């Protein structure tokens, strides 16, 4: 777990460098080799900033909110199988545990925005809550195809079931929907509507400063890692790969490929309007994911007893 907290700031550096590459700039390149130490400087700055709680805020809830996001995301990592023996606990409801934790993560946005007692924060919190609740639905449904094929909620079993073929082939629709829902769950660009700097200043965390803001920030980056891990496990065969590299290396390679995809999306796509986002979710993704579940179940039933 500590390792994850160390990788998160590294990701911030990676993101800034990659964005710079894709936008024809240099990015941070002064402090240390290739500018790696800029992360250290950022973290030190966050730690030494004044930790200010607004007098009009609801103090207890205000302090609680940033902790929730980091706790829920870190808890989700418990069920991720990094390589055959490298997993904290192999729950038989692993996938449901992940969904439960991601639904608890919505509280950090709502409570943070509400406790700030600021109209922009409240607007951001409301958008965030609506977005997270609705995208959770498709997220869960898009995974059901994988669960149907494997016959188990355990992530270890799901990875093992992909020995012959990665699930991205039979479950391509599920993969696309899960990726979109995952971006919306971590409220990354292009779906960062709860924080939309240009409209809502910073949305739900505009009153936060110092390490409390840092928690939201780190939570977001660990969230990206979590979604990348889940995509790797569920659709791209987890640690499976040709034998010339150890399993954990395959896992990390695939994970970083998806993290780079997340960053590329941020670099290239504009932010949709809020109602467009909700409309896209409920009118396109929901029917598609239901269709995906129905067709997958139908094919499995057909294969078991073809008339």
């Amino acid at each position, binding site marked *: 777990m500590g390792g994850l907290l160390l990788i998160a700031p590294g990701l911030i550096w990676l993101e800034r460098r990659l964005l710079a590459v894709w936008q024809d700039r240099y990015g941070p390149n002064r402090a240390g080799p290739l500018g790696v130490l800029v992360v250290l400087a950022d973290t030190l700055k966050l730690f030494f900033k004044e930790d200010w709680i607004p007098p009009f805020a609801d103090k207890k809830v205000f302090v609680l909110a940033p902790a929730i996001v980091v706790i829920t995301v870190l808890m989700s990592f418990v069920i991720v199988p990094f390589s055959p023996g490298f997993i904290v606990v192999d729950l038989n409801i692993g996938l449901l545990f992940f969904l439960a934790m991601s639904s608890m993560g919505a509280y950090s946005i709502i409570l943070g925005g509400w406790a700030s007692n600021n109209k922009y924060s409240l607007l951001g919190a409301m958008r965030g*809550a609506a977005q997270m609740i609705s995208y959770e639905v498709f997220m869960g449904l898009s995974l059901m195809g994988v669960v149907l094929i494997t016959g188990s909620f355990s992530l270890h079993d799901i990875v093992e079931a992909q020995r012959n073929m990665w699930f991205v082939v039979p479950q391509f629709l599920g993969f696309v929907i899960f990726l979109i829902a995952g971006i919306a769950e971590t409220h990354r660009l292009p779906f960062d509507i709860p924080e939309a700097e240009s409209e809502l200043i910073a949305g739900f965390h505009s009153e936060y400063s110092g390490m409390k803001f840092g928690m939201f920030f780190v939570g977001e980056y660990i969230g990206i890692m979590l979604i990348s891990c889940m995509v790797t496990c569920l659709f791209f065969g987890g640690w499976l790969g040709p034998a010339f590299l150890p399993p954990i290396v395959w896992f990390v390679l695939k994970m970083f490929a998806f993290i780079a995809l997340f960053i590329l999306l941020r670099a290239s796509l504009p932010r949709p309007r809020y109602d467009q986002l909700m409309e896209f979710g409920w009118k396109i993704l929901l029917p598609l994911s239901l269709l995906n579940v129905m067709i997958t179940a139908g094919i499995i039933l057909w294969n078991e007893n073809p008339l």
Partner: protein
Amino acid sequence: MAFYIASIIAILATVMVITRYNMIHALLYLVVSFLAVAVIFFMLGAPFVAALEVIIYAGAIVVLIIFVIMMLNMKEESVEQERKWFSKNIWIGPGILALVLLGELVYILVTSERVLLNNAVVDSKAVGMSLYGPYIIGVELCGLLLMAGIVGAYHLGRQRRKVIHRFLEKTEE
């Protein structure tokens, strides 16, 4: 042991839900109560129900309630009003009656014969088999109820789209 800790947390949290004056704080305690109940389910060998409890009750339903309360924008006045409503002579009568009932319940629980819990884990397949086997009528009725809800919500939320244009202004049906 863990069972008793979770149960005590659930009971304490539920008491806090009733006694808080601030709505959001009460709802947060409600979330804690749901989480404790989920832990109890998990220990009694129903991990599937535990996960659903967290996803649906703690994750979705309470979020929606908080959503509505955020929209209502409750401020200090409403906390004051809650405090006024929650005066002693209002809750003491129902409280005594409920205590009598609680005493009866405890008496029944103590005197009845003990059933040892068999911690057989009920997996999701077993849940599905019983839902679509003996309880199929309940599932169908829930489906009908939800369908009615969706149709009602669609009817309430429907709005005629207004096309604003310099020359042709009309309301689409």
